[in-house]
């Protein structure tokens, strides 16, 4: 019997505590910098090394390159770069392997849409997704380069 009263006391005490919920759709949720959101893609930095497509566990990245239109320069430039967000799991592996940081994560995460077709994002869209880009992208480097101390 006493235990029941104790429990009632706990719940009563909680009534006066501040609310912990987010007013989410009205106010954006604060996310930390490392948050893994929709990728931003910078075509100029891309060297078409194909590593992101290779490392992707769900094969959601499609890319093709073409020869550099400027004949003096070597290498390739990107032609098509699509990410299918129906199957992308935002695992962060593509940004991890990218040697030039051409593909980086942003803090945007609102992908909900009424049509599945809308989830197929092309290079232009990914390029325009340039808000809230993640600052810190390579943490596995030796300390000093990135990361914090205690």
């Amino acid at each position, binding site marked *: *019997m*006493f*235990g*029941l009263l*104790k*429990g009632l*006391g*706990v*719940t009563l005490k*909680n009534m006066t505590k501040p609310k*912990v919920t987010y007013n989410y759709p009205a106010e954006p949720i604060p*996310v*930390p*910098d*490392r*948050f*893994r959101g929709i990728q931003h893609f910078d075509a100029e930095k891309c060297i078409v090394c194909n590593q992101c497509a290779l*490392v*992707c*566990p769900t094969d959601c990245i499609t890319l093709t390159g073409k020869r550099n239109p400027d004949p003096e320069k070597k290498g390739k430039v990107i032609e098509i770069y699509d990410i299918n967000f129906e199957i992308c*799991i*935002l*695992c*962060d*592996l593509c940004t*991890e392997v990218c040697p030039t940081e051409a593909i980086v*994560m942003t803090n945007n995460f609102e992908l909900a849409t009424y049509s599945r077709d809308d989830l197929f994002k092309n290079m232009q869209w990914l390029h325009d997704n340039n808000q809230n880009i*993640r600052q*810190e992208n390579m*943490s*596995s480097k*030796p*300390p000093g380069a*990135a*990361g*914090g*101390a*205690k």
Partner: protein
Amino acid sequence: MLRTEEMLLNMGPQHPSTHGVLRLVIKIDGEIIREVDPVVGYLHRGTEKLAEDLTYTQIIPYTDRLDYVSAMTNNYAVVHATEKLMGLEVPERAEYLRMITMELNRVASHLVWVGTYLLDLGAMSPFLYCFQDRETILNLFNELCGARLTYNYMRVGGVKWDAPEGWLQKVEEFVLYMQKELATYHDLISGNDIFLQRTRGIGIYTKEQALSYALSGSNLRVTGVPWDLRQHQSYSLYHQFQFEIPTGETGDVLDKYHLRMQEIEESLKIVKQVLDVIKEGPIMGKVPKVLRVPEGEVYTGVESPRGELGCHIVSNGKNKPWRLKFRRPSFYNLQILPELLKGENISNLVAILGGIDIILGEVDG
């Protein structure tokens, strides 16, 4: 005697308290259960088969989705097995970070259990209180690795991210807060007579039964077997730290509750000790760019919040495993359910099923 009709009741796969998509085919006589037949596989995604076509790094995000309330431990299971097969050295700081995240994840997982279990028994508020504290842990993980559930944090040979500025202090604050907060939980739940009535003396099985059904984790310890892989097959750097293995006495669901509450305490203790010794240092070992695992096979067991999470890798020397098998503790623990439910009242069903603490993502693999 009055003849009563035997009724076939389909509980699930869509039912509020089967914790996902478990289906139980129950034969009941009035409200007494005569026979239970669990049907699993509604959430089967073929992780093990998929893994045969994935490189070792690519497997890690898939393990996040097995036991989705303690993904850190799953990450560790596959990473640890690979490291063992390759004979890799992991830097100290990386191991410490792994331990902090795994133990915090254990706390989060047990909090989910306490909350949902009380929800199964009909109490709403403890669920939300537990989720508030779990939220703090998830936010910490979000800060550390950028996701709240699917961490993809560990890598073969280390971890992906070092702790951000001030993160370790936040963890310490949380540990101190949580150690005090547990008293509130005991006020709210442990002394509640209705809760005691509902859980005392139900779902009891013996030590022999538990061992013959290959139960592990708190489901085994509750029968009084002090078996904890963190001490008995020590992995990572657990051998450096002091912690108790709580065991049960009576083996009923109430005992399981107290056991898991004690495990939260022990986990917090481990985190506290790790925080005291963690030093600056590299977080990635010397790992080749393309992981080629030497031919051979390895089995490693990890103490996940639900029991022994085993990972068996057979490699033929390529960058992808030839065969990968997870010993998923929820699946093994679920086996004892039909035995436990025979002759029980239908309202005990939820209490017993909840007590086993299954995660359907893990049961179905």
